[in-house]
């Protein structure tokens, strides 16, 4: 029996078609590869950029916040402290910035061919994973330099990376879909991401916030960054409660984003 496709008006909330997403998995891979390849074409140092961005940020932050302002870093070298945060933060920030604009930058695909539109923001959030891996190498370099032995919990890092991806993707579903209709998003996101850096314990420990800690907790990246650092360095126990809150918010945002995206994607081709 040949496959049967039924086309009809779409109204109300629409679920996610997992079967279809699975069938298009190769396209997801291809789109991701496209972005990865295009990224460093005609650059001299190529993939080294992936390390350079968090590394230079770390150097500047270490000079200013570590040496001048003397922000406490939970008893570990400030450079290691901030790099372990910046590593994950850079992935998150770049993914959200890129993915929220992804539908617009793929207008030609959306208006000319059918495929699950979710693939576009999804692939944009995958691209940065490679950069993360490249930048991760430097962590080992710093560990050797500072004579730190990575704890066993380093094996848990992929779990945190997965949920950070999920948070970035969930946010991107919302933002990219809204961006199709309201182009303001394009201007808001880079600004918002920049501000969020200062509301996330990347360059300072959560403890510094004192009684306003709960405010920081509303931002899922707080739990992820803290746990990521604890798993990498082992300087303090992993705060599972905080991670739990982050994961709950992330999952809710992700599912909400999926449903919202699916419900509005029907007009993408008409107004993009």
């Amino acid at each position, binding site marked *: 029996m*040949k*496959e*049967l*496709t*039924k*086309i*009809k*008006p*779409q109204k109300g909330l629409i679920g996610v078609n997992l079967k279809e997403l699975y069938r298009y998995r*190769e*396209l997801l891979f*291809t*789109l991701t590869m*496209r972005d990865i*390849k*295009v990224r460093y*074409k*005609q650059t001299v140092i190529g993939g080294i950029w992936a390390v350079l961005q968090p590394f230079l940020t770390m150097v500047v932050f270490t000079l200013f916040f570590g040496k001048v302002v003397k922000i406490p870093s939970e008893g570990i070298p400030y450079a290691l402290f901030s790099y372990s945060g910046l590593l994950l933060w850079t992935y998150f920030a770049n993914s959200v910035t890129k993915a929220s604009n992804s539908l617009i930058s793929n207008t*030609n*695909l*959306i*208006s*000319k*061919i*059918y*495929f699950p539109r979710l693939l576009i923001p999804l692939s944009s959030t995958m691209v940065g994973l490679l950069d993360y891996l490249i930048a991760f190498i430097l962590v080992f370099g710093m560990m050797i330099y500072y004579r730190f032995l990575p704890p066993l919990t380093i094996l848990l890092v992929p779990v945190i990376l997965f949920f950070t991806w999920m948070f970035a993707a969930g946010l991107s579903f919302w933002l990219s879909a809204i961006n*199709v*209709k*309201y*182009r*303001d998003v394009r201007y808001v996101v880079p600004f918002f991401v920049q501000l969020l850096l200062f509301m996330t314990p990347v360059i300072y420990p959560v403890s510094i916030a004192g009684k306003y800690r709960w405010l920081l907790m509303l931002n899922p990246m707080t739990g992820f960054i803290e746990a990521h650092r604890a798993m990498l360095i082992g300087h303090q126990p992993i705060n599972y409660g905080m991670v739990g809150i982050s994961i709950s918010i992330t999952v809710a945002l992700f599912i909400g984003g999926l449903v919202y995206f699916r419900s509005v994607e*029907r007009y993408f*081709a*008409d*107004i*993009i």
Partner: protein
Amino acid sequence: MKTDTVIKIENLGKCYRIGEREQYLALRDILMNLVKAPLRRLSGQKKRNKPYIWALRGINLEINQGEVLGVIGRNGAGKSTLLKILSRITAPTEGEVLLRGRVSSLLEVGTGFHPELTGRENIYLNGAILGMSRNEIEKKFDEIVDFSGVGDFIDTPLKRYSSGMYVRLAFAVAAHLEPEILLIDEVLAVGDIQFQQKCLGKMQEVANSGRTLVFVSHNMASIQRLCTKCLLLEQGKMRSAGNTREVIREYLQLVSEVVNIPLHQRVDRKGTGQLRITGLQLLDDSGAQLNTVASGANITLKFGYSTGTAPTKDVHIALGFNNRNGERIFNLNTLTTSDPLTLINKEGFVLCTIPRLPLVPDDYFITVFVTIKEVISDWVQDAFKLKVESGDFFGTGKTQYDNEGNFLVLNHWEVV
């Protein structure tokens, strides 16, 4: 659904809010509306309802396995909208469609091609976008490269390709799709004649292999040649469907009626509208206005235009001449015969002179196509009718031609 029906369209309709296709909103507009709405209510004004437009409505059609359906109609008739719904790019407002089998659509060649990537990388990318699996592409890779004829350039970034090579590579990938249902929008309008023939041949092959084809085109000759069935759309509605020859005849009839509408009232046009052609006058040598022209006369086509921006630079105009059968018999294009035009004023005229008009007496239809910086600004199919009467083309005083063929060609005879 009968077993040999592969596409069944039932009461299909698509409605757009006017302007929805182009416009996007900024939050500012929403905020402005929030402020304005209560004020409007206070002042007793009613909320202005945005008008709706049915781009397509009441379409019912069944297409059987192995049929080749041609979709024709003037600009804005809904052809592209129909194709976009069938290929699931946009959802219909009402009605439904059932498709049986794997569907591929080609609304443009080279969808997703990336200029920075090499030909090889783009074959994989484009193939995946068109729905081919990696395995499938790998198997057909050599064939695709062969068909495209890009040869050694396969590992060169696409941005270094000529436009001809680009199109050939793009079509080569598309030609190796093996869907059961193939939807094609005027992709054949690109490329050189030889390549177009190759493409038509490939489509014929697809049609002969029992697959189903839906094909949108303005080219009546290829519709006639390929299609077993034809659908004529007019302002979003089905005007007729069935036998290709009859439907084409009806389309041509329609064209001959439409051409009587003054150009500035025509709405079946495409393009940004930055510049519109508003009218045409026929002038003779002395600048006097004519209604009909004679074979062999020196004529001037005087186009009125209007544009919002002056001066307008980089304007190109093309005039396509069709015969009664809807076949393009020749094309006049500033791209090949002139530098880009610069229009100084917001309204004015452009003159195109044809010395010694070499057409046999008949009716001809002129399509106007205007681009500004390579972006289509105005495009009206069959904008004018050119009525050619007998005239002394050869300068022999003999005006009785036998009306064989389309053209008059100067010639000399002698016995040696």
